[in-house]
């Protein structure tokens, strides 16, 4: 069992297949590691019994010679905004502290059907609103690389859990960078799939036109394995796409010679830390060595992305969160009349960032402001999508860019400055607005040893090329293999 937590899904799968260890042993090992690392705040709930039960079932399935998949018996973690029909689904919110869903999200259901073991539900910014995990009602996640720093958000729990090896891989969700930014901050590989790739049924809606569930793991090939399980049309989600899902895991080996990689000049701006810029350039150099052709491209409307995003997202969020009224489930405050029941339940149940977005969203949808804000933001969104389409239509196959402008900041550093917090998403939000797939992968460390990530952006529904490029990159680099533990060891 030594160092098994360092293995990726493929290795674990092979070990299980060869009966080198059982799913139960593997699961117990991760449950023990989780118990020892509670201070990181990665998990909001851990399913000690249920996970063992699932592991035993997976072992029995294998022993009986029943059909198994590469994921049978493999433990994973799930962001606590995705429903399971057991345990709680808190969304990181006081409002849903004790909420138990009667149904399981489609993505989780597909994993369970494949025989995975769900270790627990990971911490997040309340309803996915945040970039540092400090907006969780249940305390922030600490970055395993430096516990005085944030793990990123909103899928901070999933990213930190993978980084601290408290699970081999996890599901996150990404509305404006919530998979990629914490992946970059924690030296993890994470994919935001094309909009429509993964069913949102059972994903508690934050901004419906942007939300996507995606995998976060040690490397691209692990993300590919999870993707081929959770991707695909679901009749319960009308926005899920009917597009064919390639068998990613068998298509990874690819010579990227001649592949054209575009670098958007607008992303190399003054907010970008010079250490990140140089790590990206080194990464691009690696890809060039592999035969890729690096070209400059322009995405001229990038500057409007954050502004458009922070109109559309609060608008949808204010609407989606209307259902949390204290009447049927969730927090209900003591009150004497209906209006105060609403006001008190929502005031007590929601944190400050959620309230801020509800207020902004309510405002931009109001009569007299709708055209000036919401309609205009949608126009900007269309222009941003067109920028990408043009870049992809003639010039390039993939776009490479930094994931974040900075490395992980200190806990508390930006909590009083929402604008500077929002600007941390500057490189990730355009992708969500355009509905494209994007994968963030480790590409270096800054002078203090903090991880740096860069993202590969693909054509709509072309996750395959992203996996292929990332896999090729990870075959010749070892950034993704570095862990906070190895860093600690080297210091000793």
């Amino acid at each position, binding site marked *: 069992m030594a160092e098994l937590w360092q293995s990726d899904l493929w290795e674990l799968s092979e070990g299980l297949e060869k009966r080198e260890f059982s799913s139960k042993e593997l699961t117990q090992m991760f449950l023990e590691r989780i118990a020892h690392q509670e201070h990181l705040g990665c998990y909001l709930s851990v399913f000690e019994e249920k996970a063992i039960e699932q592991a035993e079932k997976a072992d029995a399935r294998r022993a009986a010679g029943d059909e198994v998949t590469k994921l049978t018996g493999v433990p994973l973690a799930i962001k606590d905004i995705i429903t399971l029909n057991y345990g709680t689904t808190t969304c990181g919110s006081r409002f849903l502290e004790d909420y138990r869903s009667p149904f399981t999200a489609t993505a989780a259901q597909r994993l369970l059907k494949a025989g995975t073991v769900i270790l627990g539900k990971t911490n997040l910014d309340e309803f996915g609103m945040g970039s540092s995990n400090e907006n969780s009602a249940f305390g922030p996640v600490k970055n395993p690389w430096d516990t005085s720093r944030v793990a990123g958000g909103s899928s901070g729990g999933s990213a930190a859990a993978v980084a601290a090896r408290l699970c081999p891989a996890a599901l996150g969700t990404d509305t404006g960078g919530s998979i990629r930014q914490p992946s970059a901050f924690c030296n993890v590989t994470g994919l935001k799939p094309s909009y429509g790739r993964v069913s949102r*049924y059972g994903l508690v809606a934050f901004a419906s036109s942007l939300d996507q569930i995606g995998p976060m793991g040690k490397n691209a090939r692990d993300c590919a394995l999870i993707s081929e399980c959770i991707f695909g049309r679901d009749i319960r989600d*009308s*926005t899920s796409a009917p597009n064919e899902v390639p068998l990613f895991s068998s298509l990874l080996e690819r010579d990227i010679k001649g592949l054209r990689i575009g670098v958007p000049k607008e992303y190399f701006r003054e907010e970008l830390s010079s250490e990140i810029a140089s790590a990206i350039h080194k990464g691009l150099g690696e890809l060039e060595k592999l035969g890729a052709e690096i070209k400059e491209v322009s995405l001229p409307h990038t500057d409007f992305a954050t502004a458009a995003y922070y109109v559309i997202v609060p608008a949808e969020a204010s609407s989606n969160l209307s*259902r949390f009224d204290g*009447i049927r489930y969730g927090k209900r405050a003591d009150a004497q009349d209906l209006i105060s029941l609403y006001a008190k339940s929502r005031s007590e149940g929601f944190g400050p960032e959620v309230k801020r977005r509800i207020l902004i969203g309510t405002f931009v949808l109001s009569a007299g402001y709708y055209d000036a804000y919401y309609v205009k933001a949608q126009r900007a969104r269309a222009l941003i999508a067109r920028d990408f389409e043009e870049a992809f239509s003639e010039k390039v196959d993939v776009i490479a860019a930094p994931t974040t402008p900075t490395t992980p900041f200190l806990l508390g550093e930006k909590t009083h400055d929402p604008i500077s917090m929002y600007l941390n998403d500057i490189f990730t939000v355009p992708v969500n607005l355009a509905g494209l797939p994007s994968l963030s992968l480790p590409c270096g460390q800054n002078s203090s040893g903090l991880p740096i990530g860069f993202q590969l952006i693909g054509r709509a529904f072309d996750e395959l090329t992203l996996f292929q490029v990332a896999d090729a990159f990870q075959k010749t680099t070892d950034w993704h293999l570095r862990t906070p533990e190895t860093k600690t060891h080297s210091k000793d």
Partner: protein
Amino acid sequence: MDYESVIGLEVHVQLSTESKIFSGASSHVTDKPNEHVDPVTFGLPGTLPVLNEKVVEFALRLGLALNCDIRRFNRFARKHYFYPDLPKGYQISQYEEPICGHGRLQFRDGEVTRTVGITRIHMEEDAGKSVHSAERQCSLLDLNRAGVPLLEVVSEPDIRSAREAAAYLRALRQLVRYLELSDGNMEEGSLRCDANVSLRPKGEMKFGTRTEIKNLNSFRFVERAIEYEVARQVAILKSGEPIVQETRLFDSESGTTRSMRSKEESADYRYFPDPDLPPLQIEESWINAVRAKLPTLPQEIFQSLIDDYGLSEYDAAVISAEHEYVRFFLEAQEVCKNPKATCNWITSEIFGALKQHGEQFSELRFSPLQLGQLIALIDQDVISGKIAKTVFEELYASGGSPNEIIERRGLKQITDDSAIREMVKEALRSNPEQVAQFREGNAKLLGFFVGQVMKLSKGSANPKLVNDILLEELKS
């Protein structure tokens, strides 16, 4: 000054689809609270709406029947307000892009044919029901109705009187029943009506300030509420005061309307396109398929009953009121080829019996074919009209073949000359005094003899033959 009333109606039609508009939960009516709810109906976190295509088909049917333009690119919008019986905090509706527009409804208001423009028809979901219990000091929620599909039909302000408004509404009800979209029951809320009422000086083109009247749950209330509102507005205008734009509630107890909220107090619904539902593209082929399956519409049937079947306007209106009457009429008269008699049997015997037994037309235990046979038997002199009523009684009670009933019960008319002559002779033999009186000139006694013969024949002698033979025998 003389004023003209300007009236437009907003009608909500509750559709009789199997399942709800955005979930698989049943949309049937049930007495058991919260029986037809699922996670989507309940608005649980993580649930998503999936459009029931049947609702679109129903909207197309109504839109085409009302000569509307069909919008090819449809979007659903969220309409926000907080109320406990609205589970998501918003209602999914259509706002700027309704599925149908620019239509018209032609109907009869008494002797006149009127046409009222249809501004739009859109699809939306219903809310649940709040039940306020004084006894238990609380409010209870029943979400059975939440998510049941509705079509909102908005008319142009083309209506000019309360009576015409009721006639329009009746015609719309008739249409949705013909199209089998809804039972159109106003008392039970499957047809709900709000009226927009304003006045303007006769001859003026510009509209006056309007009020919206809610809570009109019967045809009578629609008429009374509008009458009251028009009178109220006339009085205000005559006193030189302005009309306040507001929503008013009709109180059926007092027959008056009272202010509910002014325009300033009206909610900002913050409509925006629902991101959970992709735009709905309606293909030409779908529209054509729905059009091909449309039944003949009430106005055409009304005209055809007059022109092709020779019914009076009155009878045509009665038969065409419901599609089931029309179907019954057409099938029955196909058998007997006697449309007038068929109409009479339906409107007097059938309606009378239904009323007497408190039953519905749909509960009839016999078929139009059987009614047609019964009428044919009268026309062929197999039975008399009187016997036919006896046969009908059994038909009504338990159905069956008229021929079989007549055979079994020996009701067949006696048309055999010699058999009737025997009975006539016996009747005359038994009543020598009356025979003498007749022969002395008391012609009225003929009826008496007919009665006696009929009695002897147990009602089955052909009355005309009885008459003829009686006269022969009495004269001899």
